[in-house]
Structures are given as structure tokens and as C-alpha cells.
């Protein structure tokens, strides 16, 4: 949560809010890929893609 708050304030300070959608998608995808390394989540990732 702190990370997201910091990222948000960074993007605001740098006037780069337009990056947010791209970052959210990337972080979600990245998170899924990392989680997919553990076998429990892997089947859901395969179903999704």
C-alpha cells in the first residue's frame, strides 16, 4: 500500500499520471507471473491466458 501511495505521489510530482494505466497493467501482470511460479496459482494463470 505504501508503495502504491509513493508511486502515485511520484507520478503526480513528475506530472506523469498518463503512465498509471500502463504501470497498473504491468504490475498486475508481473504479480501474476511471479505468483505463477508457485504451483498453487499457476492453473488460474493458464485459464486466464
Amino acid at each position, binding site marked *: 500500500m*505504501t*508503495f502504491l501511495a*509513493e*508511486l502515485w505521489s*511520484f507520478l503526480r510530482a*513528475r506530472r*506523469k499520471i498518463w*503512465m498509471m494505466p*500502463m*504501470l497498473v497493467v*504491468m*504490475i498486475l501482470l*508481473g*504479480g501474476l*507471473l*511471479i505468483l505463477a511460479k508457485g504451483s498453487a496459482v499457476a492453473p488460474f494463470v493458464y485459464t486466464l491466458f
Partner: protein
Amino acid sequence: MGRILGISAFYHDSAAALVADGAIVAAAQEERFTRRKHDPRFPANAIRYCLEEAGLALGEIDHIVFYEKPFLKFERLLETYLAFAPRGFRSFRTALPVWLSEKLFQKRLLIDELAAIGGKGEWDAKLLFTEHHQSHAASAFFPSPFDEALVLTMDGVGEWATTSACIGRGNTLEVLKELHFPHSLGLLYSAFTYYTGFKVNSGEYKVMGLAPYGEPRYADLIMDRIVDVKPDGSFRLDQQYFDYCTGLTMTNDRFHDLFGGPPRMPEELLTQRHMDLAASIQAVTDEIVLRLTRSLAAETGQRKLCLAGGVALNCVANGKVAREGIFDDIWIQPAAGDAGGALGAALAVWYQYLGQPRITSPNRRDAMEGAYLGPAFPQAEIERRLADAGAVFTVLDETGLVETCARMLAAGQALGWHQGRMEFGPRALGARSILADPRSPAMQKQLNLKVKFRESFRPFAPAVLREDLAEWFELDADSPYMLLVSPVREDRRRAMTTAERALFGIDKLNVPRSDVPAVTHVDYSARIQTVHAETNPLFHALISRFKSLTGCPILVNTSFNVRGEPIVCTPEDAFRCFMGTEIDALAVGRCLLRREEQNPALRLDYKDRFELD
């Protein structure tokens, strides 16, 4: 309030530095402890050492500062990929998982690593971040002896800035202008480092050392086609010729076609073409640095210059700036590369963030303590450590040590010299050095091949008594950190015969060129270290005694390591290196070790022990 720990890490040459109430207490690179060259990992060992030197626990530190801003770096990465898309997808696919799983969360990573050293604590509240070039600029100006100066930082890239010009005044740094990625002098030099077959971020010294063997035949081509340099020294790189924005290498096929062939493979034979390429990129670098410094001096009226950033380790360009006479005085941060960012970040917090007053030394000394900021070992501990390692040694008093070592050196022997606090930065400055007689014509080749196990073309540096400098070299300025190159004086040179003059490339190496051939490069230049009694009295005493025996106030000074090995740190490291090479004797503190007295069973096969750099 006043205890600040600076950290640089996660790219190359990670390091830690500790500043207490504005004074630099300790600084060291992680590679010296882990024995892994250019170690980029979190500098846990260097931090532990800094804390031990200050007698503090991590919890007693008031501020911890990281030398760059990860979010800003990620912003640059993302915008670069977007600007070049769809080109660069392969590089994007390689880089992104690392960023999303690790680098973007560097703050968390830092907090976890700090907790591993200091236990649970308010690390989040203590953690600060400076910008990469702010860290470099702070490392260049705040320890300098100047109240006011122009501060120029040049390197590969940090967040966005690749070159920045600031004015340092008292405890402030005001940014005047910056050049941004991908237009980078450091990356241009690294592109040629890669193209001539050396490792990026470590082989740049080799390109610089190779340059005098060649002719700058490609300099015009570089200036015409790949870099557009303006009269004020600002420049733009034509990205058609580079691959670093979108690919996994520095240069691309268009670059290779322009310079007549594919990149040289590591360990492939060096030809005259490679030497000409090295000479050309060096000439272009000199020209850019000279134009930048000239225009900035004219624009700001500043008469003093501070330098940092990886390009400031290019002592050939520095020497040209010094000899141009644009500035009355130049000061260069000895740890000008990323390791020095740890120190700069800590100083930036003290002066810029906390607004503490800065008072320069009245005797015009800098605040770096000769760069001797690393670990030292008490005599009793040295004896215990050496005995445990199986070394056979004699303990002498200081006068006896100086006398014996000076006589050995005068007799042509190579001496390992491990004394006092280790240096901070890439140069050995007489604390972790291999020393030899510079008058011997065979010494350069012998040291390169039998002691350092490195390429025979690489030059050695002279450590010269400051008071005798002008008698031997065309320079009369302090160069305590081996960061200025200057020619040997005309009357010390040896005239070459017509046949010798006609030699090309590495054949030139075997021709003695001066009264001190082992430290005179093929173009009569030398990378000078001035030795001062105030900062290293023992080393000064040794050279002085060598002078009284031989009339020569100079010693060959090369780092105490072999190719690919970090410079030695502990007495055990020194003993291992001694036993793995052809060094004749070793002085660790007041212990003297002679090769012939050591147990032959302890000899090491050292040559292939380290990955080549």
C-alpha cells in the same frame, strides 16, 4: 542528527560511506570484502565495516541515504521503450520482469537488508534518496578544498542526466544545465570499449591505455557521423548507430559497418585498427571535455573546477583540461565512479538536506584524508593473521622496514605494500600497492605478465614525491589520486632512433623512452600520483629513501591484485596474492615477507582464479 550512512548498490561497484557531523569517517567498496570484482550487491560488509570504524550500531545512524532514485530510473526506462517501440521488445521483455519483481521495490529491499544488519527499526523513516548526478556532484564539491567552484559530472547514465554542470557555493549546489539520456559521453566511450572487445564498465581504462599506441584515424568519422558536438561541448548521439536503448548490446550493425567490421571478441588479438579506434574515441572524448569546460568557464567565470562521474576517471582528458590553463585549480573525486555516489549522497544529506554550514580547510587540504578511508589492521593483528595463514615473516621497526624495502626496490625487486587504511576508489595509492623500480626498461612487461597476469600493453603509473614533481614531469599541480596524465619532461626523455620511431603498435612498448621507462607510456605520458608527507608519511618516507639510494624520487605504483581480482583488503588477501604471483617481497605493516622464505606448499595457482575483467 549528524550520523549519515550513504549507500550505492544494485548496478556496479556497490559501496558504503559514513559521515559524522560532516566529517568523512569511513568509506569502502563491497568488492574488497566479498572478493568479487565490481560487486553490485547490497553492501552489507562495507556497511558493517563503516559502523565498526565509527564504533556505532546501525540503529544509532540518523539518516540512511541511497545514491539514486529508483522510480525516476524506471520512468526513464519506460519512456525510452515507448519512444522506440516496437523496436526493443526483446530488451523490454528481459528488463521488465527484473524491474517489476525487484528493482521497482528497491526501498523495500533496502529496508529488509538494513533490518538484516540492524534488526527491527524505523528504517523507513530514516531512508532518503538523492539523485544520481546530485550524488556525484556532492562527492566532487563538498570534500574539495574550494569555497566556490564549477562542478562538472559526466558518466554513463543515472536517472536521466548523463552530464551535469553545477555551481558549488558553500553548502549549496545549484544545477546550471544537464544533458539527458540517451546522449551520453560515458555510453559513447563504453560503446567503443565494447566494440574493441573489452568489458563495459570495467574495460574503459584499457581503451584509454591502448589509445597512445594508435592514431586517431576515425576521430573525424565519429564527429561527422555518430556524435554531433556543438561549440559549447553539448552533444547528441545519432541513435541509428547504437543498440543500448533497445537491444542487449552497445552497438549495432550500422556502427560495425561504419568502422569496418564486427566487434573484437574478448582475448582476440589486438590489431593496429583497434588501437586506432581507441585513439580516436579518446581524441573525441578529450575534445568534448575541453569544449564543455572552456564554455562553462567562460559562461560562469569560475576559476576552479570539480569533477566526478565515471568519465572523470579518464585521466588523459583530465590532464588536458589541467594543461589548458582554463582553471586555476582542479579537484577530482578519487572515487569518481558509482562507488563514490555513496559518499556524495551522505554529504548531500548533511549539507543540502540538513543545511549544515560547510567550512573548508584553511591549509587548502581536501576532506578525503588522502582517500585512505578503508580498514586498517593493528600490528598485533597483522602478525596473528599472517601466522595463521602460514606466512614466514620478520618484524622490523619502521626505519628498518623503509630501509630494507627501499634497498630491495633499488635492486629491481617487486614489492607488495600493504599499509594503514585501504583506499576508497579504484586506484591503489600506496596503501594496497605493488611497487617497483621505474628505471628498469623491462619492468613494465615483467610486472604485467608475471605479477599482474594482464595484457602487456597496459601502462603503469608513477608515484612521485610532490616536491620533485616538476623536475620530472610537465606538471606542477597536486595529483594525489592518480587522476591527471602529464608528459615526462623533455630533458628526461630518451631520443628514439629512426628505426624505433618507425615501429607500430605494441612493438613501441619495448623501446625505452625516458629515464623512467616503466612509467612512461609510448606517447611519453604518465598517469601521475603525487605523494605528500601529510597524507601518507610512510609511503613518502619510502620513496624519499629510494631517492637517496638511486637519485630517482619515483616508484612504479600499481594496484595490489591480479587481473580480474579486487584490490587486496586484509593481510590474508595480500599473502594469498603474494603466494600466487612473482612478487619478490611483501610488507604488511611492519612484517616483511620474502618469497624464498615461504613454504612452497602454500604457493597458489592464482592466474586463473579470477574471471577476466
